[in-house]
């Protein structure tokens, strides 16, 4: 689900970016004759942002050189390849230079200038590899990047040469797959590959360019003859006077030895994928919409900035605290989660320029008479952990004499006020406004206090490039109006219209809120969560059982050392709360070792250790419960320890252990829900996210509970069947 979600979010951001960039162009075009040229976001060495976030590359330099020769002005816009092509078709821009291969299909729509670069697909292998040709690929794995001409080519020949393909979204991952030896080769356009090698990749190109083609500069068919003529004339000149060669040489080097000294400045964020943590539910900044897609101001901004700056993001809704911890431990690259910039946080994180100004407001139930802080004396006030609202409430609670109740989740906090458990809550004003707009039965009674700024955070001293790119992107979005669009989308243009607008509420009302309706609507998300839960359970039970049996046997063996090791392991991992163990493994270990652990693996390790410790305890107990005379009798016959164990003790012990095993399997299934804390999208986390959107806590938890019960019933039946067969 996640991939699909991010892809769709990317698409939305793309569209927004496209509109945002395009709209002002009409006026610009009318004012003076500057040609608007579209290009790709990141396609080194043809176009990419360098470490000052300036667009450079062969295409860009050629275009600028041609313009200079011919005395016209160009405004080059990195729209992304597809967006640029579409913009050209729609006459939004005048031309496209984007490493675009001249094909008959494209010639039907566009007029192309003189081919300016000859290209073809090459194969590269690790420097020390012996592979020289396609025939040596038989039965091997080959790495590709999605959507490239090279991938199309590789797929067209893979049956003939009998190799398999692995596809990556990112060139760097593709290269890495080859350098680590997972794949033996990769396919890429010759200049792109050559540039990568010049940049220091441990690869070498071993084939001649195949599927040759030419890159061309394109204008709309029949429209911009003048521009095309200028381009061709200028191109002829720069070819003649050596400028062209200089440009190409600058990026590709003439040979592999004279490579990179001058071009070492490669784009720092371009084409990289950053993992960004965010909150599970902090509308309007992040939340799952009714298609269970993550949206919100934070998400939209981040995607738009990523698009603008040409990097990729993998957004993980971990929950605020988990995200902050994950950032601190280096599990993720950044956090955007409606996080206020505070001095305390600045000690650990580097913040971007503020992207949103907020302030804390107090809200009370609709029918409440409380309007002032002074009326809170002796009452309870709800806050959400780690928020600026909570800090503010805590700072004034002594003065106004109220008590605070802390929640992990905004909805629970609102509900506490709605039900009258607490008289008020403190929350950032946009959050509160959005909540009320969505139907939370509260009203805001104070003006914003403690005005503060939200910032995007990276770990202190790490990922400075990402931060710089974020800042540049943010400035660009503010300049081109995209920023305003995004905030207006969630908050309305001003406060009045925001609160008055009932549109989102209306669409909510059309949702079917019956059990059947809820299941229908969320079946995709629930199914994915269910699969994740089952998968986690199966993998964890498998490893926990092996771990438990080994440790249990060790504990029952006559060796003192084995006994010691066994009881220490049981002591530690049975004694540690599962939640603490999960957080320790997911965020603590990376802080110690410096390498990340995927959440799924961290989850499996957690369950293996914890459930395995319980398993070990009853395996040991089961063996010890077998009469010691059985072992003595076996040994007195001359049977060695291991044989006696296998033939006599274990068959009797396992009978004793079986009910405990079944019990442990059921507990493991249930304990997977705790792993929602490290952001695993299993059934419980899925439930939380759905409820965060539709506030149907009772119904959704009922559905989730039934799913768990159904699985546990199946598991129990299965175990009973196994037990009956063993007893027979």
């Amino acid at each position, binding site marked *: 689900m996640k991939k699909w979600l991010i892809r769709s979010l990317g698409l939305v951001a793309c569209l927004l970016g496209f509109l945002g960039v395009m709209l002002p162009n009409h006026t610009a075009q009318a004012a003076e004759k500057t040609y608007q040229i579209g290009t790709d976001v990141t396609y080194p060495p043809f176009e990419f942002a360098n470490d000052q976030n300036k667009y450079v590359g062969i295409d860009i330099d050629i275009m600028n050189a041609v313009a200079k020769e011919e005395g016209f002005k160009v405004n080059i816009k990195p729209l992304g390849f597809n967006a640029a092509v579409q913009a050209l078709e729609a006459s939004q821009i005048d031309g496209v230079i984007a490493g675009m291969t001249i094909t008959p299909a494209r010639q039907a729509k566009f007029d192309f200038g003189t081919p300016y670069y000859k290209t073809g697909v090459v194969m590269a292998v690790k420097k020390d590899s012996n592979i020289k040709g396609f025939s040596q690929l038989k039965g091997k794995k080959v790495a590709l990047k999605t959507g490239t001409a090279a991938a199309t080519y590789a797929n067209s020949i893979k049956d003939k040469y009998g190799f398999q393909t692995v596809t990556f979204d990112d060139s760097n991952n593709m290269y890495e797959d080859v350098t680590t030896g997972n794949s033996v080769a990769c396919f890429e356009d010759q200049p792109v590959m050559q540039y990568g090698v010049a940049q220091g990749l441990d690869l070498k190109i071993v084939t001649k360019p195949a599927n040759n083609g030419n890159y061309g500069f394109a204008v709309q068919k029949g429209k911009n003859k003048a521009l095309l003529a200028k381009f061709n004339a200028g191109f002829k000149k720069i070819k003649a006077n050596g400028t062209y060669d200089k440009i190409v040489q600058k990026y590709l080097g003439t040979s592999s030895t004279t490579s990179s000294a001058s071009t070492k400045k490669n784009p720092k964020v371009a084409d990289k994928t950053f993992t960004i943590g965010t909150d599970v539910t902090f509308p309007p900044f992040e939340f799952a919409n009714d298609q269970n897609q993550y949206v919100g101001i934070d998400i939209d901004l981040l995607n738009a900035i990523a698009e603008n700056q040409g990097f990729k993001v993998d957004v993980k809704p971990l929950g605020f605290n988990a995200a902050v911890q994950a950032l601190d431990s280096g599990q993720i690259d950044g956090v955007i989660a409606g996080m206020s910039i505070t001095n305390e946080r600045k000690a650990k994180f580097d913040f971007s320029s503020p992207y949103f100004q907020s302030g804390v407001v107090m809200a009370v139930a609709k029918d409440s008479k409380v309007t002032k802080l002074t009326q809170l004396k002796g009452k309870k006030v709800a806050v959400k952990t780690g928020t600026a609202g909570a800090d503010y409430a805590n700072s004034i609670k002594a003065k106004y004499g109220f008590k605070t109740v802390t929640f992990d989740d905004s909805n629970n906090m609102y509900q506490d006020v709605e039900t009258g458990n607490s008289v008020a809550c403190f929350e950032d004003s946009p959050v509160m406004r959005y909540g009320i707009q969505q139907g939370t039965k509260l009203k805001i009674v104070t003006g914003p206090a403690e005005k503060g700024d939200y910032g995007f955070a990276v770990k202190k001293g790490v990922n400075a490039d990402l931060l710089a790119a974020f800042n540049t992107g943010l400035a660009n979005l503010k300049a081109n109006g995209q920023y305003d669009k995004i905030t207006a989308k969630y908050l309305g243009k001003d406060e009045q219209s925001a609160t008055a607008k009932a549109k989102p509420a209306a669409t909510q009302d059309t949702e079917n809120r019956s059990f059947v309706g809820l299941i229908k609507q969320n079946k995709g998300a629930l199914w994915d969560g269910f699969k994740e839960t089952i998968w986690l359970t199966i993998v964890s039970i498998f490893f926990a059982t092996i771990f438990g049996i080994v440790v249990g046997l060790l504990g029952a063996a006559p060796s003192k050392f084995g006994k010691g090791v066994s009881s220490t392991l049981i002591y530690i991992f049975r004694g540690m709360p599962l939640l603490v163990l999960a957080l320790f493994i997911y965020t603590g270990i990376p802080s110690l070792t410096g390498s990340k652990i995927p959440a799924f693996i961290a989850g499996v390790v957690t369950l293996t250790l914890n459930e395995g410790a319980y398993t070990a305890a009853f395996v040991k107990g089961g063996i010890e419960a077998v*009469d010691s005379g059985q072992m*003595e*009798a076996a040994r*007195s016959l*001359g*049977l060695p320890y291991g044989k006696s164990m296998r*033939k*006599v003790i274990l068959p009797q012990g396992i009978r004793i252990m079986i009910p405990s095993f079944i019990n442990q399997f059921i507990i493991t299934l249930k304990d997977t829900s705790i792993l929602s804390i490290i952001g695993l999208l299993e059934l419980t986390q899925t439930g939380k996210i759905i409820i965060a959107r539709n506030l149907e806590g009772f119904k959704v938890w009922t559905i989730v509970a039934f799913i768990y019960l159904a699985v546990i019933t199946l598991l129990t039946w299965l175990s009973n069947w196994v037990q009956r067969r063993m007893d027979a």
Partner: protein
Amino acid sequence: MTSKIKVQDLKKNYGENHVLKGIDLDVQNNEVVVIIGPSGSGKSTLLRCLNRLEAPSSGSIVVDDVDISDPKADINKVRQNIGMVFQHFNLFNNLSVSENITLAPIELKGETKEQAQTQAKKLLETVGLADKFDAKVQSLSGGQQQRVAIARALAMNPDVMLFDEPTSALDPEMVGDVLGVMKDLAKQGMTMVVVTHEMGFAKEVADRVIFVDDGKILEQGKPDAIFSNPQNPRLQDFLNKVLNV
């Protein structure tokens, strides 16, 4: 007659509790030795040291020229030649009667299942339980279980048999069957070390009776001498108690 088991200055203590305080004992080939003594005197401990179910604290135990008090000795090999019968039978609860008997021959001697089963049938016949071949252990009476246990020990063709109060856990009417099997064994020339309170058996079958008290051998000799003319006052005292009940 050559010495089958030679025990020299055997001591065994559990922490501060000195259970065996220096035992010297020679068991000859084909000899039947009966050990008697009060409860807690160390009889079982002595017997269990003979096949190293208990590791001695000091002293040496040589069985067939192998010093089994040496930790490097291949104890599993030696045990194959020493059958042991326990007070509580200790039949394998997860296996049938025949499987109890055939497990060790199949696992240790590499016998095929058929070979081992043929032998098991013969052994069950000699202990009078031919019809129990496929029975479950739990379905047998105590006396039957103990006779299966003897058959299980005999299946490895041992030259020595150790018995630790084999009839103490049995109802009186079953004692005779088990003792009968043991008498037959003795007649066939099996070397036997038997801990028992069955004085009748000792008088009839034993070549030598050994009286153990407080971790030491206080008196030993032919059954006649021990029972009709005991020297040590503790032995006299002990016999008074057991024979006059």
